[in-house]
């Protein structure tokens, strides 16, 4: 700090002024000395342009912290005060990240809404001052520009972004149950128009640079450079800076106008929005849509609409006030805490705790070209893995290859890939019917039918042809890995990799280790999963592992509820209104009735009475009639190609009627039905932690939310217990236990947590 002041006073000396006007020194001089003084931000001067470089210490990304904010204010004040400086460029020193957003921990540490409001208001003030700067400031954006980072960028007079895949702009606050609290809700509608602003703020979607240019979110694009006399990334940032400096000069000289030419459509939209009636219609429409999608479970989107509306209808001052206050309120909500918890969990599950594997997997082989096998192949080839897809039959293989191609081609249609890239990626895939080339495989993932003897057979066949170091991974949802590994010559190389369907959409990968699985094998499996872009939980072996095991008792309850004559449609709406993305009856159809039956039988045998409830007979009858769910066109619902609305399968009536049970009125209210499902799920999850199947509650939450669709607003079963209160969960379970028996008996760990309120899964 002292040093930085010294610079300030030094610059008043005439000598320096002369040097500056010659314009050849100051950059290294001020730059280096400022570096000594500040840890997050330093700046240098190129001619009459200040180049402000953001560089959070000891981190791969820049985040807006209190320190960074303070230093930024300081630096800007110096720039505004300096006679030599006529304009400024704001740039990050980190490749791949401009500013990734505000520091979540800073918000999480706040105890009261007022503290959060204060943070928001400080940022608002700083950014407003920046917006009104008489010296033009150019934001030079390379890499992620999200949340607070975007709010910073849009407060500048001009934005230049590199046009690469890493450069994304967006306001993801809503995904954490928050809103953009540093003026974003006020500036974005003015910048990109009300409809586009609502879309950005309400969905939190990432916007690529070229799209941002079209929307008017950035003013210029810079193509990333190839290697020159230094590494490509380094030179690209340098080039971005050079271009930004030239624009800053141009803006200061008024040879470049910061105003953008608007297209006809934009002008028309802008005109329409001057009519109050049109605006009201937009608010109404957006609100309807939000209510429909969130079912009132997420407070943030509605508040966002409110804040944007206040800004437009009542002026910016009211808008800022409303923004900061609502921001404070939201930061204190359970939903926000749950979502932030998930965010942290996700970060955790994107790391390899098991170290770097001895041998990197370069050649992958997948057995079985079904939905799963082909899905795994797709997420592997597009990361550059040479992948063999083997199936037993040509039609099966052909179907699988088509699936991979279609998956890639859909990306071409969305312009995420070029057709050339698609073809190059697709050439990583080799389809075959034999074991040719398996001698070079570093990992084999089998995704054949869920049948133990078949899995044994392929394991033996594969072990005859693969090299010693090759990992054998089994993709199964319920068969214990140790039973599969029983016939292996090298059980330390056998592991479970439970993918979720559709593989290219579902983020979760559950990795299952047996007692014999070696650490290196686990490290290898996690490394591959991460490469495939998965969020990974690593669990111990056991019937149903973690995810299937949690789902099974809930499914059993679903059947009982259906037997108690609750209509499948009603059940679906009860579950979705609780926050599940897919209704319970629909879920059975999606998973496949035969699969559900299979799992229910297996786990029923393993866990006995506790997994009972509904009658298996229901599933058995459905399977015998061919009602296998979506894949056969009929389940609880009827599925037709091209028909969106779902109709109940009337042939189910007789099956349901023959198995009907009288509902117990004391536990059959809508709320009770919801909690019967959720508490069985939660109880089983906690039992998995108690038994050591799960290593951490965080993995349990991530697995439940990303693999099974547990309501994200509740943050996962463990977060739910923490936020809802263990005692209340136990009370619910005891109430249902009284009605139905030991399927609802709360597990010991849950009782322990209920007994001492200070005990939390997350401290």
């Amino acid at each position, binding site marked *: 700090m002292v040093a930085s002041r010294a610079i300030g006073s030094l610059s008043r000396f005439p000598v320096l002024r002369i040097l500056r006007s010659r314009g050849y020194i100051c950059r290294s001089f001020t730059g280096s000395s400022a570096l000594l003084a500040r840890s997050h931000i330093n700046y240098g001067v190129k001619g009459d342009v200040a180049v402000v470089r953001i560089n959070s210490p000891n981190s791969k990304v820049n985040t807006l912290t209190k320190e960074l904010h303070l230093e930024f204010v300081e630096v800007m004040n110096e720039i505004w005060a300096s006679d030599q400086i006529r304009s400024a460029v704001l740039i990050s020193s980190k490749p791949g990240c401009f500013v990734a957003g505000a520091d979540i921990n800073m918000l999480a540490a706040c105890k009261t809404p007022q503290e959060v409001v204060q943070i928001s208001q400080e940022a608002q003030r700083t950014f407003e001052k920046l917006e009104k700067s008489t010296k033009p400031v150019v934001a030079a954006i390379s890499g992620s520009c999200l949340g607070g980072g975007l709010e910073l960028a849009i407060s500048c007079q001009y934005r230049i972004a590199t046009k690469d895949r890493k450069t994304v702009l967006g306001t993801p606050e809503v995904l954490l149950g928050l809103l953009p609290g540093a003026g974003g809700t006020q500036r974005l509608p003015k910048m990109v128009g009300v409809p586009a602003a609502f879309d950005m703020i309400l969905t939190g979607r990432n916007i690529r640079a070229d799209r941002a240019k079209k929307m008017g979110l950035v003013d*210029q694009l810079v*193509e990333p*450079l*190839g*290697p*020159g*006399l*230094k*590494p*490509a990334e380094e*030179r690209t940032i340098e*080039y971005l800076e050079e*271009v930004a400096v*030239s*624009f800053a000069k141009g803006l200061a000289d008024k040879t470049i106008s910061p105003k953008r030419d608007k297209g006809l459509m934009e002008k028309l939209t802008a005109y329409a929005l001057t009519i109050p009636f049109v605006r009201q219609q937009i608010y109404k429409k957006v609100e309807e849509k939000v209510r429909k999608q969130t079912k009132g479970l997420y407070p943030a989107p509605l508040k966002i609409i409110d804040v944007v509306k206040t800004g437009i209808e009542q002026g910016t001052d009211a808008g800022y006030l409303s923004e900061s206050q609502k921001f404070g309120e939201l930061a204190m909500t359970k939903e926000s805490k749950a979502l932030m918890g998930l965010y942290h969990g996700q970060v955790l599950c994107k790391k390899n705790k098991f170290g770097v594997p001895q041998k990197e997997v370069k050649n992958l082989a997948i057995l079985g070209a079904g939905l799963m096998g082909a899905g795994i192949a797709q997420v592997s080839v597009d990361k550059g893995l040479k992948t063999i897809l083997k199936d037993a039959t040509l039609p099966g293989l052909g179907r699988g290859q088509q699936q991979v191609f279609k998956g890639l081609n859909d990306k071409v249609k969305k312009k995420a890939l*070029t057709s*050339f890239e698609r073809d190059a990626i697709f050439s990583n895939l080799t389809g075959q019917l034999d074991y040719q080339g398996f001698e070079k495989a570093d990992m084999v993932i089998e995704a054949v039918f869920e049948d133990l003897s078949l899995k044994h057979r392929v394991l033996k066949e594969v072990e005859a042809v693969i090299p010693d170091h090759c990992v054998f991974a089994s993709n199964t949802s319920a068969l214990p890995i140790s039973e599969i590994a029983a016939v292996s010559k090298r059980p330390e190389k056998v592991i479970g990799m439970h993918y979720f369907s559709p593989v290219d959409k579902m983020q979760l990968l559950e990795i299952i280790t047996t007692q014999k699985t070696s650490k290196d094998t686990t490290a290898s499996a996690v490394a591959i999963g991460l490469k495939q872009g998965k969020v990974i939980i690593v669990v111990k072996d056991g019937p149903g592992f973690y995810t299937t095991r949690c789902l099974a008792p809930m499914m059993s309850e679903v059947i009982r509820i259906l037997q108690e004559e609750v209509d499948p449609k009603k059940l679906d709406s009860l579950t979705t209104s609780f926050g599940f993305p897919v209704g319970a009856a629909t879920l059975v159809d999606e998973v496949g009735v035969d699969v559900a039956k299979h799992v229910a039988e297996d786990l029923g045998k393993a866990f006995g009475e506790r997994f009972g409830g509904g009658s298996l007979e229901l599933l058995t009858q459905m399977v015998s009639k061919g009602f296998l769910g979506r894949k056969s066109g009929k389940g609880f619902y009827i599925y037709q190609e091209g028909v969106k609305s779902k109709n109940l399968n009337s042939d189910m009536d007789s099956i349901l009627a023959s198995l009907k049970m009288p509902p117990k009125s004391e536990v059959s209210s809508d709320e009770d039905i919801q909690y019967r499902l959720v508490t069985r799920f939660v109880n089983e999850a906690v039992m998995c932690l108690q038994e050591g199947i799960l290593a951490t509650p965080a993995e349990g939450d991530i697995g439940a939310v990303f693999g099974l669709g547990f309501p994200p607003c509740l943050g996962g079963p463990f977060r739910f217990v923490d936020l809802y209160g263990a005692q209340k969960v136990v009370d619910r379970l005891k109430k249902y236990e009284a009605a139905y028996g030991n399927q609802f008996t709360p597990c010991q760990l849950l009782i322990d947590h209920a007994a001492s309120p200070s005990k939390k899964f997350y401290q």
Partner: protein
Amino acid sequence: MTTILTYSFKNLPSTSKWALRFSLRPLSCSSQLRAAPAVQTKSKKTLAKPNIRNIVVVDGVRTPFLLSGTSYKDLMPHDLARAALTGLLHRTNVPKEVVDYIIFGTVIQEVKTSNVAREAALGAGFSDKTPAHTVTMACISANQAMTTGVGLLTSGQCDVIVAGGVELMSDVPIRHSRKMRKMMLDLNKAKTLGQRLSLLSKFRLNFLSPELPAVAEFSTSETMGHSADRLAAAFAVSRLEQDEYALRSHSLAKKAQDEGLLSDVVPFSVPGKDTITKDNGIRPSSLEQMAKLKPAFIKPYGTVTAANSSFLTDGASAMLIMAEEKALAMGYKPKAYLRDFMYVSQDPKDQLLLGPTYATPKVLEKAGLTMNDIDAFEFHEAFSGQILANFKAMDSDWFAQNHMGRKTK
């Protein structure tokens, strides 16, 4: 993808000025070649290889190179190629029956004359018994024609080859859209009126939107100019450096033209128009004038402009190459040996235009030569920013170590 040919000169001051391709005449350092005295290789007495025939350039000619859309605009590519071939026949008086094979290189093919070498040769009065084929390899298609000829000669398949190149950018094949083409083909096959009508009923107005030949790389969808601008930026080549280099190229070319050194040019009498005797794209300007131009590709802040790039060109060239003993037996005094060549290719996105950097050291090593042995290099490139970037790359140890797998530059 690029190539460099090294050739040691026999003791002849006038060089073989065959054109490598349509573009870059103004940018190449051709006049230096002429200034070079009789060259003796310094580190090696001879570059002849044991048990391999010596290959010589007997002579070469080219039509004047014109800006696209000027005097050649109503011609077809084989007209230009024919002019070059006729010129070669006149210049060398080679008996047409001794020519074993004719090869031409071209980039954008006219579909009617897809084997343009054959069509041009027939029209130029070569024997109809002489086979001909056409090759393509982007900007170095004509080089590919020459080295294909070298291969035929060294393997003993042939003794006398004519190799050349042609490009007519004034006219390019613009196609109907895929949908329209499909409909037209299907219509051909339709047998009944009903079938035809039902096909026609599927017609949509957007079928008529034409399909232009890609000026961009197929794999990256990037145009060359765009790539050159990025390359110049990657190597921090300034606008001023580029303008200065372009000015130098144009000035040298102008000097060569004025002094009558471009002896490879043969006049071409365009049917119904004047006789063209010289290139019309050599236009030295001033740095001030050049500085006024706006960037042509990366707008508004790029550095590649119309002034520091080559123009789109129409032109053709042809050369006579032979096995040395054949040439001598026929009484020719060859102009040069063709000793060695090297093709390289790199990442089409970021290193598309860095060929010279990779090829130069390789071809020198292959021939057992060092930089000191060479008096003049001739690089044919389309943008001054590009060749300057290549110079910087070749002059960088960092680049050699990190991208070329070499210890030093």
